[in-house]
């Protein structure tokens, strides 16, 4: 839920308003950036840059109710630039080791099976092309509507829908593939035991 009054207070440069905005949005922004870039350090920088630009340009936002779209547009642009820059230096996809390190860092204490499924799915998401990945994250993690995502990404709603469709199909395919591999692995183990 957008706090329109808080956005207006920031536009009027009221003291403490920005700190409140930071408290309200920084964690979600950082987590979104983390998912978009796949890197904690880059995400931290992206979140800081996005909030800095937000402070600098918030007076230009004509409709405070559109703050969420406007802010996410800034954040996505910064993360996209960072990802592309990173891609030039090395592969933008997370290596399995990195992913496991990321998981360990966050102390996710789940059962191994679920954790493996998460890793498979996250790897699949990270392997999606950037526009598809952004769409998936904004839709599933940020709970944004198709229309809002279209505004954030500067494309037609139909494009967002088709990106979501292809992303879901790809992810389903990857999961089925992983399931099948597990199934055959289990069969082989059982066969040997039998």
């Amino acid at each position: 839920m957008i706090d329109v009054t808080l956005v207006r207070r920031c536009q009027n440069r009221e003291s403490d308003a920005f700190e409140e905005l930071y408290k309200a949005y920084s964690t979600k922004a950082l987590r979104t950036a983390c998912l978009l870039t796949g890197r904690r350090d880059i995400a931290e920088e992206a979140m800081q840059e996005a909030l800095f630009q937000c402070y600098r340009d918030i007076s230009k936002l004509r409709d405070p109710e559109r703050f969420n779209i406007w802010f996410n547009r800034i954040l996505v642009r910064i993360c996209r630039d960072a990802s592309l820059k990173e891609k030039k230096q090395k592969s933008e996809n997370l290596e399995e080791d990195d992913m496991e390190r990321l998981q360990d860092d966050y102390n996710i204490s789940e059962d191994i099976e679920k954790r493996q499924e998460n890793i498979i799915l996250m790897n699949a998401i990270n392997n999606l092309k950037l526009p598809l990945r952004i769409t998936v994250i904004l839709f599933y993690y940020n709970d944004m509507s198709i229309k809002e995502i279209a505004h954030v990404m500067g494309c037609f709603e139909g494009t967002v829908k088709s990106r979501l469709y292809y992303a879901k199909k790809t992810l389903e395919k990857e999961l089925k593939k992983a399931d099948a591999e597990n199934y055959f692995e289990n069969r082989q183990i059982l066969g040997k035991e039998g």
Partner: protein
Amino acid sequence: MIMNIDEYIKSALKNNVREVSPKEDSLEKIKSRIELNRSESYMSRKRFAIGFNIRRAVIVTCCSALAICGGLAVSPNGRRVIADTLTKFVYGYSEVKHYDKVQKNADLTKDTGFDVKVPSELLGGYKLIDTDISQLEDGSSGKIEKKDKKELGAMYSKEKADSNSKITKWIGLTEYNHELDALKYKNIQKVNIGEKTAYFREYTSITYRSDVKPTEKDWDDQKDGKAVIVAVSGKKGNQNIPEKTTKEVRELSWTDNGVNYTLTEEGYELNLKELSNIADGIMNSK
């Protein structure tokens, strides 16, 4: 794997980052960045605004006038006056209204008394940053008298990124109901923009610290239109203000619907064609 894929994706994303939180010093880092940007932007904007506004005032009075910035003082008859301090307003334009948000042309027209065209963006991506309206005031008799002459000044900016940092490029647009100053100068070049005639001029903006005397050549150049002399307040020993600095300026002036326009840029970064295209955009804006 018989599970709703939507829920599955949601859950994986959420779980993947649920322990991620901003670093303790994040807010402080953002605040430092804001402070740094504020001072950089302020200095850049102030430097341009000083030159821009003073040139506007100098243009109106006469060629050999000397402007003192801060509170503005321009000698009424072109006397060569240098003051050490800015205590007395003499004759020039004084701001009567200031807007930091985009205004409707109709509202600005009402405030100035003449038809204005202030696009929110100029060709090339220059965005309107702020607008002010100034009115000619004569305080030479000791009592300030407001005249009918008014100016609207609009400042536009665009951030240019080079390999290391971002630089702000400023463009000034002045709209006024007094005489077109460009016609006074020898170094103007006529250009046609659509069906209108515009006047192009290049000159050097020479900024002196107010305790330093301009050279005879500078005065002659100002008379010919090759230079505009600006003085900034400061005294000997003030290390922050250099004795003399120069900037190359390009200006394009024209008349549209009885209102005179002057487009100003510093640094010779925009050529005549680019300035003409921007002017054409202003002429055709609604």
